[in-house]
């Protein structure tokens, strides 16, 4: 599988993994009577790549939405960069430096790649609407600074040739890459990727793996990702958290998790 396809020795390039940046403690989330997540605790450390895996319906996306501030868990605490969270919403989480991509691409299909990436920097734009209307001084300077940064990301993701193409006209794999770009444009300290390689062919997956690793190395971004392709997960992640029926059933280095009996059972469908 892609284990062979990735010639890079991931760990050789990685930044040093630091202290805990995000801590989840005893998180439980229910929708009506359905328990989506029960009593989940784990840490994410600075600069690491953490994969969340599990069968369909295990609660992976819900967990990402909890981290992201979309869902509010009924129980448990979330500590990000040493601060306990209260009353979170996605907007606030984004301004704390967490960016994400979506399982179903959520890009602006009618806008160019460049404009899509620029919207990723929306939170960093400081000038007011009236100033912008006049497009004077500060606004123009600000626009240039942001544009330069976005151009760096375009070069980084090797999407120079589609800079001006409307996103809707791009093939799926490239749209995923543009979405990663938009998340990167926000210069996040933590990046949440919801199935970044879903629906891609082998070559596109390899490219995406390389970008994820490079993001981690070049920018030191902490990455939490959900992925189904076990080859990819084992290849690029430092640690793996396994969910099943909303419960955490495994947590550790890829090799440990691979040999964990509970995990094997979950994937083979042994009844609990």
């Amino acid at each position, binding site marked *: 599988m892609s284990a062979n396809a990735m010639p890079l020795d991931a760990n*050789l390039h990685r930044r040093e993994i630091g202290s805990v940046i995000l801590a989840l403690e005893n998180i439980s989330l229910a929708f009506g009577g359905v328990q989506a997540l029960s009593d989940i605790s784990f840490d994410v450390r600075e600069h690491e790549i953490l994969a969340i895996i599990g069968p369909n319906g295990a609660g992976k996306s819900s967990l990402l939405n909890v981290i992201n501030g979309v869902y509010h868990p009924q129980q448990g605490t979330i500590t990000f960069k040493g601060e306990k969270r209260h009353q979170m919403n996605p907007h606030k989480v984004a301004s704390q430096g967490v960016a994400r991509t979506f399982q179903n691409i959520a890009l602006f299909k009618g806008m160019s790649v460049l404009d899509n990436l620029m919207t990723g920097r929306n939170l960093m734009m400081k000038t007011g609407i009236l100033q912008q209307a006049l497009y004077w001084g500060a606004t123009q300077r600000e626009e240039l600074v942001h544009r330069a940064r976005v151009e760096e990301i375009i*070069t980084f993701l090797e999407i120079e*040739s589609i800079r001006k193409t409307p996103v809707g006209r791009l093939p799926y794999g490239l749209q995923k890459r543009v979405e990663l770009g938009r998340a990167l444009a926000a210069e996040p300290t933590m990046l949440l990727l919801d199935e970044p390689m879903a629906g891609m062919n082998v070559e596109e997956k390899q490219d995406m793996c390389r970008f994820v690793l*490079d993001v981690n190395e070049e920018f030191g971004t902490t990455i939490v990702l959900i992925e189904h392709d076990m080859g990819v997960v084992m290849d690029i992640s430092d640690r793996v958290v396994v969910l099943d029926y909303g419960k955490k059933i495994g947590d550790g280095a890829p090799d440990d998790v691979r040999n964990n009996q509970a995990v094997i059972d979950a994937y083979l469908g042994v009844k609990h």
Partner: protein
Amino acid sequence: MRVFPLSGRVLEMKKYAFKLPEAKHVAKRADLISTISEGNAVTVSAAPGNAMTFPRLLEKHAAARGDRPAMREKDLGIWQTTSWSQVRAEVEAIAGGLAALGFKRGDCLAVIGDNRPRLYWSMMAAQCLGGIPVPLYQDAVAQEMVYVLQDADVRFAIVEDQEQIDKLLSLMPECASLSHLVYDDPRGLRKYAQPQLMGYERLTAMGRAFNATHPGFFGDQIALGKPDDIAVMLYTSGTTGKPKGVSHTHAALIQTANVLVAFDGISENDDLLCYLPMAWVGDFLYSYGQSYVTGLCLNCPESTDTVMECLREIGPTYYFAPPRVYENILTQVMIRIQDANPLKRRMFHYFMDVARRVGIRVLDGKQDIALMDRVLYGIGELLVYGPMKNVLGLSRIRVAYSGGEAIGPDLFNFYRSMGINLKQLYGMTETCVTVCMQKSGDVKLGTVGPPMPGVEVRVAGNGEVLVRSKGMMKEYHRQPEASKSVVNAEGFFLTGDAGFFDTDGHLVIIDRAKDVGRLADGSLFAPKYIENKLKFFPYIKEAVAFGDGRDQVTAMINIDVAALGDWAERRNLGYSGYADLAAKPEVYALIAECIGRVNVDLAADPKLATSQITRFVILHKELDADDGELTRTRKVRRNIIAEKYAVIVEALFSTVEHCEIEAAMKFEDGRSGVVRADLKIGVAKIQASDQATSVARKAA
């Protein structure tokens, strides 16, 4: 060893009346090009050949036009310009760094990567130090590089990025001498701890320090260089055996470049986009060489994917590409036209018809064009050709070359009829490319033009093309035997290509010399030449011509189901599959017509008139690499086919009208079986050669 397999053809353009689109173009580019200094053009006469080396040309340009742009590169979406004096400073720093690392005169410097300014400068730095740059194909896998690195005894390499570094690192055990690897782009390499590695910035910093403590070193090194030093080593892929390092001297390269400059009036005001592999002689001579000889500006695209966009922004005046690039551009045009609204589509087709009718004659400056046609062509230029050329970035083109392989006539004519001066050229690495080239205003389709000034071309008794010029390679590196074997007693280089001069003195390349046979009457039989002519028809996918030792020529045809299926659909011709379609009388008639047209072509040349195809068969199955009938690169294996289908071949050379055949074939699911078929033999129209000649002349 050949760079241009079958025939290189080049297109060329003249000054054209596309003032209007050009003005629009420039306006569009103005915001992208940050600093084009438009100072008064300094005229530097082309290098006085003999005493010159590339480093001395650098010194000359830095002095004479220090502020003029030498190179542009698109970085972060903006074209950044480097002037000649900046280039000189950069080269000096690289050279200093290399010297500090122990680079000696005669050392080889491997250069691997896309067309990046720093890589071009590194080649120059090596030359300044009396070393030899050895550019390698950037997409070669690591193992393919081993031979070159060992053969050239490479100690130093400057490469683009992590990808190349990874390859070289994996080769360290085999290439013991490789001791210094410099990279341009540090991405992904920050954690590499190998002692051999060094970033470009560190190298140049080291170089500046070195130069500060060794004042005069750089200038002295340049002064030491002699014109007959080796300037570059270009490895040819070599279809057989190991690659060979073709060594060229400064004198030979500069001489050849000067010939080109004079031929098409290339000057420092030309603009060129360099995107072809740096390891290809075409890029070395036409980009690097021309830039240093004339002082023109090289433009490096942002990435390999943005070439089209960069083309549009730069609007080069001078362009060199293999036919497949021209084909890609045409495909893009056709796709866009298909998506366009019906009005635009009709307009396009109408004016393309006009262009087909008169465009080429307008381009060649012919006088005998009806006023109405001139007016229509003018309107077409305004409405169709002009805007199209503008979109494609071709509106400023003065001269465009096609080389590397033969270009299809439709493709060739498409560009020419739009007013793009496209020309074919012929040459190979060993001859610095430039052997023959079509002249502006005198372009004959199917030929590669007359020999260039200063190049002697002869056709040997066996049909092989022989070349002698001052631009010849010095030798194959470390292969004295091979070096001797490709040059005859009179100093002519044996190209290995078979060809002949047509009645106007234009060279026609027909095949590899070893593949050319003789008919029973002793006249020339060039199967590949005939097959290629057949394959230029979209309906014919493969063709195999037979005739060596026979009294006539016959052919076996594979139809192109995609193209013919479309054709059949338009005629409401039902068919169940390849074999069924291939056997239709309508298809036979169509193919017979195609062959008839090839025969008219062949008859036009007295040397080939006897090679007209008399009888043919449309094979009931597609030739397939799985059945051993084609190579993996889809080249016909003539002998195997002749053996396997001996029955058909015999039938072709007899007078029968049918032929039964049993052929073993492998099915897609892996089973093998025997297919029986009863094939009809088609008869094609033959031109009586004398008449044919004059008729064809008139038609042309």
